[in-house]
Structures are given as C-alpha cells and as structure tokens.
C-alpha cells in the first residue's frame, strides 16, 4: 500500500541472526499489540538452518483488519550486520530504522529519507547482564522495550505477558522485565519517542486468538477423533505432529490407567508413514500424516493404492517452495496438481484448501469425515504461511453434538445378520460400497489388493470386471462433489469482474478488493475450498466476463485444474501468479489487475 503509517496501521520488521533467541521477543511484541485490541499478524522468514543465517520477523498491525503481508516496512529493527544494507533499503520513505550503535556503521550506509535511531543494545546488555547467553538473548528484549516507547505501547500489558510466560522462572522474569525497562527508558531519554504514529488501545481482538495453522490442525485432529498418527519429519509440517502429540499428552491420557488413547509412530520415511496411515485406516482407526511436497512425491505410490482399494486416509500437505528440495522454509501453493492426481494410472484425490489456521482446525474434522464417507485418501493443502505463521483467528468452538461420519462400515452385529458380503458392490447407488473391519466377523472377511479386482474383491484380469470397478470410482468422484465444502462466494450482480483464489491468498485478495473498491472498481470473489469443484464454481465462472485467478505458483495450477475440470473459456481467465517464496500481498494483486485493465483500454 502506498498509504502512510498511522495509528494502529503499521508494519515492524526485525532483521536478526537465527539461533539468537529472537522468536520469544518478537512474539512478545506481537502479542502485546494483540492484547491491546489491535489486529496483528506475524510473518517469520527464516532460513533452512539452525544457527547463524539471516532471519526476519514481520509484524503488521492493522486496525482495519488487513492481515496479509503488507509489503512496506515502517519500522526496521536491524540486528544483523550481514543484511544491514538490504534492510536499510527496505524501509519505506518516512520510516524508521533502529540499529545496535554499540559498534559503528559504515558511513555510506545511510539514507536521508528515513529516520535512523542508534541504540547501544549490546553495551546496555553487557553492562546489565553477566551471563554470556543472557547478553545475547536480552538484546532482543531490549529492542522490544525501545519499540514500546516509540509506539507508546501499554507497559502493563507487556508486564502481564511476561508474568504469564515466566510464571515458573523467576530469574528469567526479572531479566526480561529489566531489559524492557532498559530499552524503554533509553528511547524515552534519547529518541523522539513516541513516534507520530502509535499503538492505541482498541477492541478489535475480542473473541479472537493468535495461532498458527499447524497447531490448529493438530488440535483439529484430536477433536476429530484421530487415534493414529504416522509421520516423518519435514519442514514445514513437523510442528503439526508436535502439536498433536502435545495435545494428546494433555487431553488423551486415560484418567484411570494413565495409558495413551492414541498411537504416534515416527516412521522411517514418508513411504512408511503413508503405509501406516493406510494400514490403520483399513483396520478402522482415524489416521493421518502431516507432510510437505517432497513427502507427497514419495507417498504417491501408496496414494494410488489407497484410491484403488478405497481406504480412508488423511494427509496434511503443508506446502513449501518446490521443485525438488526447493526452498524448504518459504511458502508456495505449488502442489495442487501433484496432489490432485498423485500416483500412476487414472487416479484423483479429494483435496481441501484451508485459508487460515481456523480453517485448518475445521478442515481436520471435514477431512476425516470425507475420507471415511468416501473411503479414499483426502489431502488437506495448507502451506508454510498458514502452517507456521501466527494468524489472528476467531476463537475455535466445538459442537458437542458432533458425531464422526464413519461412512458405511458394517460391524459384527450387522454382519451377523448377513449371509454374504461383497466389498465393492454398490448397493445404494452412490458408488460407495460398504466396508468391514478385520477381526470383526468371518462373513466380513475380504481381500484388499491393489491389483485388478472385481466387485466381490476377487482378483481379476477380466476387461469388463475391471472396468466396472474403475467406472464406479469415477462415479464416486461425482458423489464427492455433493459432500466437499462449498466455495466461499462474495457476489454482487453489478460486478462483471471476479477473482478466483485459493488458500492463503485470501487475506491479500480481500485487501486488494477493498482497496480497488475504494477506487470504484467492484470485484466479486470466489475462494475454492475443495477439489472436486462443485456446481457453484461453474456458476461463478459463467456469471463473469473476466476472472483473475490468484494463486502462489508459477504454472497457474489452480487455473489449469479449473480449465480441465469445468467448462471454461480460458480466454476469460487471467493468471495472477506470485511464487517467489514470500506470502503474496495486496499491492501485487492490485498492480496486476490495474495493468491488465490498462492493457485492455489501450487495445
């Protein structure tokens, strides 16, 4: 946005070296704003490394509630000499930069159009802390104190947060409180604090929480009744299983025996992780695996197996930058087509596209219900931006009347009344046949095989019998359309331009629509939430002359899928593609739309 910062509308970026413990200081700063009632979002740009490489954290505060990446920096805290030059250049004209003035800067590194504040962070810490580690860590807390003075933050809020965080660590609490005061007082004495724009107490965060998508998805799996989790560590999905495990340790211990009402297996690789999920699904448990793009590549063989043998399974693909190893700590939405058709042969998978941590939580529930109802693997496509960044979301709520949809499962009592059971026979006309679970009843026994099978489950190489099964699978895909979540649509008849988008683009798209609306350009919006697409997506396309398809990959994967699966005049669809690894931003979308419209006028 070209707009200037104002009260409660600004972005702070902290440039640091990874491994120096800045995460908790940055979290403290963001949460203080949140506790003051100001909507915030935190974006962490971190390296695929443990210690020593550059890392950035960006906090955007927006009273208006625009919580995509802002794309402009009003306050830069430049803690990393290595990236100083670039960090200096990134500050918006009129903005501020804070650096550690303990050591001199290169005289050439200066700018006339911003204000530069030197704060002797290291010196202050060296004077006040004796422990070497504390001297490094506390520099981060001191800059929070500096920002608190500059933005006139409520010190009671910060103090309360520290009390909560370090309730059981008195020495750390004292050190943190001291560091905040040091920074605050230094800024009050030596700098022009407060700045012309500040943080004012507001009320826009009541009923909200700050959470990342992986934590929300892990919690969702607990609530959805998942009992088996198998996984292989891979960035950026690892924290999903960490969260599931953490919640299970608190919420899933049998109160009487102390035993675990869950089983988590760290597999030897992704091939095994998906095998375990399918084995558990086959045996009747709700089972899942979190992974990322490279994991999906490895799991593809088994995904085809799960599709053909009709075994429920839930996968979370927290997407990162591809291809190959790509950039493991950067975000992208580039696994859409890979997931839709993962595996050889005629294979297609049900996909869900959450757009926020809140939707990750509810997607977990939906994914398990769909997987069991449709007896097939379901992949939830989140991404690094949603999965690992802190988003502001509506407080999560659970309907205590909810019961899992286990789909068509015949248990011992049902089988006792039956003479024969045929695994793949469509009795109800919805192309979904009943399944049975091992060990329940002799009548329910059948043989699961990835080789050609007929509707009785028996091996076949017969042309007709084989085709009968794969045709029913295609028909089941049609059934799936009535079960998957419908798109989110914002539609006004007077608008003939629309945006179709997906997942984590949502905040940026909404902000772009808001800004363009102020300029008099009305745009409708549809966000797909699932594959297969249902009828509403077709209607939306039919009802517009021009549609911008906004997504975060190079090859317009969502657009390709729309053209492949729906009736689309592809001239109507204009690609807006953001794929450099950073989350997309409103200004990028606005510029793309303006350029396209200008091109139309010129022609």
């Amino acid at each position, binding site marked *: 946005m070209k707009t200037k910062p104002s009260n409660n509308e600004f972005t702070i970026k902290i440039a640091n070296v990874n491994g120096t413990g800045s995460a908790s200081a940055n979290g403290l700063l963001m949460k203080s704003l949140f506790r003051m009632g100001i909507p915030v979002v935190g974006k962490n740009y971190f390296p695929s490394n443990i210690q020593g490489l550059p890392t950035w954290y960006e906090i955007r505060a927006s009273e208006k509630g625009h919580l995509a990446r802002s794309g402009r920096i009003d306050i830069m805290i430049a803690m990393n000499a290595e990236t100083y030059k670039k960090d200096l250049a990134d500050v918006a004209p009129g903005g501020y930069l804070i650096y550690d003035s303990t050591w001199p800067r290169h005289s050439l590194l200066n700018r006339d159009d911003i204000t530069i504040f030197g704060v002797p962070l290291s010196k202050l810490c060296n004077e006040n802390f004796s422990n070497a580690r504390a001297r490094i860590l506390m520099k981060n807390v001191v800059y929070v104190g500096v920002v608190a003075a500059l933005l006139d933050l409520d010190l009671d809020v910060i103090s309360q947060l520290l009390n909560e965080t370090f309730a059981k660590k008195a020495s750390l609490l004292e050190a943190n409180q001291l560091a905040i005061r040091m920074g605050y007082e230094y800024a009050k004495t030596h700098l022009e604090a407060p700045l012309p724009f500040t943080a004012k107490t507001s009320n826009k965060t009541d009923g909200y929480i700050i959470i990342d998508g992986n934590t929300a998805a892990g*919690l969702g799996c*607990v609530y959805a009744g998942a009992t088996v989790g198998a996984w292989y560590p891979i960035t950026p999905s690892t924290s999903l299983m960490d969260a599931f495990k953490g919640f299970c340790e608190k919420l899933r211990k049998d109160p009487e025996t102390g035993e675990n009402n869950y089983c988590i297996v760290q597999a030897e690789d992704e091939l095994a992780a998906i095998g375990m999920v399918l084995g558990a699904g086959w045996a009747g448990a709700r089972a899942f695996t979190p992974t990322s793009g490279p994991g999906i590549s490895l799991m593809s063989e088994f995904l085809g197996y799960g599709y053909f043998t009709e075994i429920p399974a839930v996968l979370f693909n927290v997407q990162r930058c591809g291809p190959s190893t790509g950039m493991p700590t950067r975000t992208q939405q580039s696994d859409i087509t890979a997931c839709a058709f993962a595996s050889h042969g005629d294979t297609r998978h049900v996909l869900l596209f959450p757009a926020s941590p809140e939707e990750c939580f509810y997607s977990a529930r939906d994914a398990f219900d769909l997987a069991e109802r449709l007896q097939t693997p379901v992949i939830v496509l989140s991404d690094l931006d949603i999965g690992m960044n802190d988003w502001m979301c509506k407080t999560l709520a659970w309907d205590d009347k909810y019961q899992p949809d286990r789909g068509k499962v015949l248990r011992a009592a049902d089988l006792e009344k039956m003479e024969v059971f045929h695994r793949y026979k469509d009795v109800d006309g919805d192309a979904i046949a009943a399944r049975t679970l091992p060990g329940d009843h002799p009548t329910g026994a059948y*043989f699961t095989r990835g080789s050609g099978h007929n509707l009785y489950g028996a091996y076949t190489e017969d042309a007709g019998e084989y085709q009968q099964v794969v045709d029913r699978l295609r028909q089941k895909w049609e059934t799936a359309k009535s079960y998957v979540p419908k798109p989110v649509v914002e539609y006004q008849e007077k608008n003939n331009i629309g945006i179709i988008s997906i997942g984590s683009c949502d905040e940026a798209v909404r902000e772009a629509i808001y800004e363009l609306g102020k300029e008099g350009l009305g745009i409708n919006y549809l966000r797909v939430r699932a594959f297969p697409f249902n009828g509403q997506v077709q209607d939306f396309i039919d009802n517009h002359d021009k549609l911008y398809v906004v997504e975060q990959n190079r090859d317009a994967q969502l657009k390709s899928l729309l053209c492949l699966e729906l009736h689309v005049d592809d001239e109507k669809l204009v690609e807006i593609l953001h794929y450099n690894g950073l989350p997309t931003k409103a200004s990028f979308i606005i510029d793309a739309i303006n350029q396209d419209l200008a091109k139309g006028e010129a022609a």
Partner: protein
Amino acid sequence: MSFMKRPAVRHPKLPVNDLGLTVRDYEGGMSTLCAGCGHDSITSALVEAAFKLSIPTHRFAKLSGIGCSSKTPAYFLRDSHGMNSTHGRMPSVATGANSADRSLYYIGVSGDGDSLSIGMGQFAHVMRRNLNMLYVIENNGVYGLTKGQFSAAADVGSTSKKGDANMQPPIDPCQAAITLGATFVARSFSGDKEQLVPLLMAGLQHRGFAMIDVISPCVTFNDHEGSTKSYEYTREHYHPAIMADFVPPAKEILARYDEGEAIPVQMHDGGTIILRKLDKSYDPTNRISAITNLMSSQTAKEITTGLLYIDESQPDMHELNNTCQTPLRDLPYSKVCPGNDVLQKVQARYR
C-alpha cells in the same frame, strides 16, 4: 483364481481343535502358484499352526507385499481379512493396522525380493519397533514373477537358470533380524513341516516381532544344479540346530526331554516353547553367540535352522508407546474428543 473356493468336502473323522473346528476351516482359496512351489507347503504349515492354536478363524490379519510369496495370504484363513499391499511396504501397513487394533494376530508374508531389496528399509524398521507380528519370508533366492533374476538373498556363486553366477554377497535375513532388534528369529525349510509348524505356532504366540526365514525353493526358476536354494542343495546342507516345540497355555508338557538338552522358554501371553539343542554349541538366548554361530555356519556353507534367537523380555511397540489395551479403533468417540469446554480452556494460551 484365488477366489475359487476349495470343495467343502470333509472327512468325517478329521480331528477338531478346542473350538470344534477342523483344519479345513483354516484354509483359503486355491493356490495359483506352480506345482511343487515351496510356498504352498508354507501355506499349509500356516493353516496347521493356526488350527492347532485354536484361534478363531477371523481373528487374524494377513498382510503381504508384492511377488509370488505375497499372493499366498489369499490361500489360507479365508475368514480373516487380507491385504496385498505394495512392493516392500507391508511392514508399514502392518504397523498401521496393529496401531489401530492390537488385539489381532498379524501374519505378514513376504519374499526375499520384497523384504531384502525394495523393502529392506521397512523390514529393518519394523524390527526396531518390535511390532507384535509373525513375519514369514518365503525365501527362494530369486525373483519368480519377473522370471528368474537374482534376489539379494542369492549366495555368491549360486547360478541362475541361464548359468550366470551371482557375485554379490547375500543378505541373510536372520543375521539382519538379530542385529536390528527382532526378538524371535528362526530359519526353516518349506520341506520340513515338522520343524516349521511349531516355529510358526511359537512365532504367533510371541509378543513382539517374530521373523521366520523359510527356504522355499522356486521349482521353475531356481531348483537347478548350481542353485543354493534348490530342494537338493537345501537338504544336503541342512543343519537343524535348535528344535522348538510349542506347548500352548493350559496344556501339560507331555513330551520327554533328556536333561540338559531342553530349555523351556515361557511365552509372554502363556504357553511354553521347549527348545531342544541339536547343536550343543548354539545358545539361542544369547544375541552375540547367535550371530557368531550364523556367520561361521554361513562360511561353512551350512544352512542352520531352528529357533535361532529369542528374547521374551523386550517391550513391543505398544508397550513402548504406552497404548491403551482397548483397540484404538474401538474407543468410543466420547473418549477421544475432549469437548468444547476443554477447547475453550486450551485456547487461553493463544490470547
């Protein structure tokens, strides 16, 4: 043809087990393997073992990978669920199924191609987990379904049907298993049912990972002169070291054993294995000497068979995980969903 039912003709005097069932009740579909295939003998040994243990016919889960051996779960225990998974991946599917329902008897059937090449990783790790299952490798040293390529179990110098000699060292599944954490390791021969059936029974009762490597000659591609996995070669170099007699729980030990040669091993869930030492130098309860013994017999071109290693004291995957006794898949939803009140409390830390 695996769905073809065998004729339900029963001899009226067929013996019955404790459940009143005959051995025919434990059979499966017709085999489609070559006549004389060692695998079919193993299938019938499995049928006999299950029958003798008097386990209800539907309380097994049969899992396999891909290959000739992996077809066999269709040929036994027709009342139990079976799953022919993908090549080399059966251990992971078995792990998942066992996670979901720990109460079943898991039988994995694999081959030397399925376990020792594409599936070596999963084979290794399922043993590290000490998953409670019986894992049978039907070992013929050759890829049958793709017509006679060497497998990783082929011995150095063993020749193919065309006459080429294998020059790469073999992987011995038993040595691998003992090294990697299996707690019940045996070798047998498809042609020695007397040895194999009690081993399978004991393996099924063992709490933890029971690996049985069964030399099972491929009559079509690896039963010629020059092959070290032929019927003839196996019989010539066969060296039974430890015989194991399985005595089910609540049965009296009737057979007599000479003092000093019989070691009773109490199974975790009841029952006893009586180990009879044919080779006095062999101690199947000592991991290091078991491996040493196997390595020297390999050098001597002996096929040492019997219960090669047993450790009943190690915890299995569920014990290590502290999983509840109720199969997870049968936990009522009310027991796994903490409810909205708890959800509201959980979120305090996110405000």
